[in-house]
């Protein structure tokens, strides 16, 4: 080793520095360490890592670009005529719903990515650092917000092209968007728990779909619940997804109802309060 360092250093002449000296020179004093990173700063740093991964592996955006376009176009043209008489009328009803459904479906990938990530060596190192532990999961979810925003913009753009004209204007759409992002963040904790509880990515996918299918289809996304049998109608009305979709429709239509927004926020708080700590418990025990 000293051979190479001498060889590369010699042309410089005077100071021949060995590798050992170079390494010793960059070591800081053991007592000289910065104050521990705070919870917010650590979460944002892990979020930054998620963004870097998107930058280096842009293919991972496939699900948040192609999937939303497919969903929006397919459902509008397949069901539009049959359910609402015309595609034009159905677009006004469906776009807010498909907007919510697609983002909810996309949250599932958060869990799948985490399932793959946690088993890698880097998580051992993360877990050995003196940071606020939930930051490792919170940061991953924050990074995913970028994916959700991208998916949301694409759906709204496709919807606009197909004739969707919300009465609430830009401010109504933005309010709905923000609320949906909060819900998506809260719901992601469910997939975080699933992904930490099962061993493989396939199993995480299976369990997630098992939860997602009834949650999104037994809702008011595609049809009005009044057409359903009364027992199902009641189930659909308490489904958190229905509550979110109704609120999004209201906001996009330009009506702000503090009551329904409040209910959504309560659902969000419950999701985080239940699934956050459960996820952390599994995460801390993961070997």
């Amino acid at each position, binding site marked *: *080793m000293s051979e190479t360092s001498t060889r590369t250093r010699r042309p410089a002449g005077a100071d021949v520095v060995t590798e050992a000296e170079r390494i010793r020179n960059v070591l800081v004093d*053991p007592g000289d*360490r910065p104050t521990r*990173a705070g919870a917010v700063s650590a979460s944002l740093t892990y979020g930054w890592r998620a963004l*870097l991964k998107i930058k280096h592996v842009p293919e991972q955006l496939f699900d948040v670009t192609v999937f939303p376009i497919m969903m929006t176009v397919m459902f509008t043209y397949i069901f539009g005529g049959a359910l609402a008489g015309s595609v034009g009328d159905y677009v006004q009803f469906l776009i807010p719903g498909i907007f919510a459904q697609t983002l909810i479906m996309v949250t599932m990938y958060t869990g799948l990515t985490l399932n793959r990530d946690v088993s890698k060596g880097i998580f051992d190192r993360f877990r050995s650092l*003196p940071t606020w532990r939930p930051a490792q999961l919170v940061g991953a979810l924050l990074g995913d917000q970028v994916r959700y925003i991208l998916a949301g913009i694409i759906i709204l753009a496709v919807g606009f092209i197909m004739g969707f004209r919300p009465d609430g204007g830009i401010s109504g759409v933005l309010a709905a968007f923000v609320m949906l992002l909060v819900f998506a963040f809260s719901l992601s904790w469910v997939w975080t728990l699933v992904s930490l509880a099962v061993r493989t990515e396939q199993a995480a996918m299976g369990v997630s779909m098992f939860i997602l299918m009834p949650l999104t289809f037994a809702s008011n996304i595609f049809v009005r619940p009044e057409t359903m049998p009364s027992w199902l109608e009641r189930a659909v009305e308490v489904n958190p997804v229905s509550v979110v979709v109704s609120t999004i429709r209201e906001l996009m239509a330009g009506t702000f109802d503090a009551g329904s927004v409040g209910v959504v926020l309560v659902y969000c708080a419950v999701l985080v309060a239940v699934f956050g700590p459960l996820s952390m418990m599994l995460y801390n025990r993961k070997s």
Partner: protein
Amino acid sequence: MSTSPAIEATGLVKHFGDTKAVDGVDLTIARGGVYGVLGPNGAGKTTAIRMLATLLRPDGGQARVLGHDVITEAAAVREKIALTGQFASLDEDLTGLENLVLLGKLQGYSFATARRRGAELLEAFGLADATNRQVKKYSGGMRRRLDIAGSLLTTPELIFLDEPTTGIDPRSRNQVWDIIRTLVAAGTTVLLTTQYLEEADQLANRLAVIDHGKVIAEGTPGQLKAQVGSGTVQARVSDPERRDEAAEILARVLGADVDAAADPAAIHARIDSHAHAAAALSALEEAEIAVETFALGQPSLDEVFLALTGRPAETDDRTDDSAAGAEDAATEEKASTR
């Protein structure tokens, strides 16, 4: 700085289902120097390290690291240690610099300081050319160096290196050894696990030999060797006809048992010290026996285990078919990478 030992563990136990990965490990490791934990694959080394590094909760026993309990004071332990895992603890998708900035930020540095520290470390570890290259495109040796650099953004009081040279080429291995010696000289305590006796002998001040989740021997490399015998002499004479004569001379001068090998010109001797090796070579010369090779060898890990346990080292104690298959596959893989 307090004077508590770097590590004090008593009766550490960890089960995975029916397998006792760690089965009552007691260790006291003083501050400073390199402490080697030697053992074959599946002996429980990694599990023991993961418990000491607060990644895994022990099922039984107690451990204090740098004076802090690994369970109740895990956060305090994490502030003082760094861990370099057996499989590179790096983000493969990110570049070398991004990995270091990430770890620097998480230690509490500002972005600018983390970037400066990252660049300094890359330069010192000879990775400046690979600053903006994704880690997945690094060679094994480069990864290992970056991995260690990732533990040095701040200087830990104790660094865990889990098999830092497994699977890398000899040149990179020597670089890693130099890095470890530098760290020790700077005052960091190093806990190193290894499968290689030579590595432990090169670096460690003290050693524990672990097998089946238990410490089966502990002491300085010298003490362990005294138990095992310090090595072998392997000689090969030019004229096979004179082998018996040479064997007699070696047996007399070395005072050791001498075996005739399958090769009709070769002789093996197990010796307790290298002291008489030079005399043995001179004696052969005086007798005018031409010697082609005369080599001093370290006892292998197998010989250590044979001496300590009366059986060779197994790579896995679960002797079912799948384990045997995995073992074969691993051996093949090693052979093909050469």
